[in-house]
């Protein structure tokens, strides 16, 4: 059995789950045994389970008040328990912040090797071989693991989302022994954007310090993003300056993105930022400094003043 832990939010199945199903299908085609099983953890997750059933061979649903709030300990305990009971040989979690937080605990519980944040995955002899980025995403490493069970987290955006299967999978309810919560969450601030989420955006418009100030994000970055149906990103310097929320930060300490087009306005291109966006299909740089490192990785660039170029882009992109 290949066990996938569903990622979901707001009662909706995340794209990451569909991507993990694709990774799992590649493994079954390579000879690893199915069924492809999706585990849905949470409370009030019937809708999520239904969406998961469209792509998976079977869906295990733990609809439990103790899982209403995500916690690494509970998710790890639940996943390890199901993996053991179902004799899973592969466990796949999303490479999200939370996925990469509980997956190592699952690996320790199962005494299993852990392939983290993989961008490719294939069957190799009795085990699995994977590629992943290291050194601030400047190096692509190939790693291999063998064992009766292997834990994997899959980097978002690395696998195409799975199309629905010919037949929906069966759904089963599961009971779990969960550890008592030891971390209490005393407040939560959800940073929502009315725009498309960075992890799902085909186009991202990111502003760097060269945008000038917080107001200029409203004048330049947001209108251009809206015209292009794009998500809005920001560099660390911009977030540190308080111009934009952390949720928009792209880079080593923020989000890793891989859109079709990444449009960087006034971004210099520090290596920590490149590690978060360097795998974008097309990179566009607009900066008045022709020597900015961002131009070295750009497909298209305009050397010019944002105050002049971006209004022209906003106007031209209306059409």
């Amino acid at each position: 059995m290949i066990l996938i832990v569903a990622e979901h939010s707001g009662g909706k199945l995340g794209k990451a789950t569909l991507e993990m199903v694709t990774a799992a299908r590649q493994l079954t085609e390579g000879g690893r045994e199915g069924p492809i099983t999706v585990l849905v953890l949470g409370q009030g997750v019937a809708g999520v389970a239904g969406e998961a059933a469209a792509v998976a061979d079977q869906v295990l649903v733990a609809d439990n008040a103790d899982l209403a709030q995500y916690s690494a300990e509970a998710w790890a305990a639940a996943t390890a328990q199901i993996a053991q009971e179902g004799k899973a040989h592969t466990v796949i979690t999303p490479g999200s912040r939370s996925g990469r937080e509980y997956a190592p605990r699952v690996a320790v519980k199962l005494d299993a090797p852990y392939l983290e944040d993989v961008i490719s995955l294939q069957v190799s002899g009795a085990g699995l071989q994977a590629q992943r980025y290291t050194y601030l995403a400047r190096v692509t490493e190939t790693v291999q693991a063998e064992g009766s069970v292997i834990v994997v987290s899959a980097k978002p955006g690395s696998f195409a989302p799975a199309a629905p299967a010919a037949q929906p999978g069966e759904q089963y309810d599961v009971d779990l022994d969960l550890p008592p919560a030891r971390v209490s969450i005393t407040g939560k601030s959800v940073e929502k954007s009315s725009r498309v989420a960075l992890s799902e955006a085909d186009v991202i418009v990111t502003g760097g310090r060269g945008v000038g100030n917080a107001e200029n994000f409203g004048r330049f970055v947001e209108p251009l993003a809206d015209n292009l149906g794009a998500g809005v990103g920001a560099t660390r310097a911009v977030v540190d300056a308080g111009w934009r929320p952390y949720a928009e930060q792209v880079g080593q300490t923020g989000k890793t993105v891989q859109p079709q087009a990444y449009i960087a306005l006034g971004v210099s291109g520090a290596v920590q930022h490149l590690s978060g966006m360097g795998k974008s299909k097309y990179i566009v740089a607009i900066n008045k400094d022709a020597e900015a490192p961002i131009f070295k990785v750009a497909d298209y660039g305009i050397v010019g003043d944002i105050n002049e170029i971006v209004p022209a882009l906003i106007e031209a992109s209306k059409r």
Partner: protein
Amino acid sequence: MKILTLIRQVPDAEARVRLSGGSVDLEGTTVVMDGMDEYGVEAALQLREGGAAVDEIVALAIGPKRNEDVLRTALAMGVDRAVHVETDERLDAVALSKVVAQVAQAEQAELILVGGQEADWDSQALGAATAERLGWPQLTWTNELKLDGATLSGRHDVDEGNESFEAALPAVVTTQQGLNEPRYPTLPNIMKAKKKELRKDDLATYGAAAKVKFVGAEIQTRARLNKVIDGKDPQAAAAELLDLLRNEAKVIK
């Protein structure tokens, strides 16, 4: 209460990464204390300076001989003692956590601080795997941290924003940007650090073996088009860029 702070030595972010014989070769590369680990060292010092009952702060590095340098830096920043498990062996995070957990137990540490994702292995697993081995809770991506008696509180980033939390020690905390501003070691403290204990340990005593085998590495520099448009005529530049994105790259409509 003892704090264990974990340190990795990584290439300086601006340093060029080279490969030789199919793996990253750090020979001749400037190596430094990982930035995210540095927030952890600073956090330990600030907790003590802020009045928490911290008896001792111990820095731990697992890696080749040159790791002594980052441990000396930590000692110069103000940690009390250092442990170096010297090895040239390449261990994955889950394997390394076995060493960390045993050191933590031997030292009777109650709080472990480690960077959220270090700049060499791009892994977030060490803190979580160590917490699991010890049976402790973990708080990852922390950007605010207080210690009152045996109660930790603070704030950390999660998938969709951030959370305030409270948890009782013992715990593992992973650190990141925003938590603090790490101090620079002063010359007198660098001199003092030379006299502080830096204990050497043998990896063999911990029974940790890699479960993930390293096969190879490559630097994939994607060939970029590098088409640069002069922005002197903003309207023409904007029109040209949109045309390229629509008709050549076909990434916008």
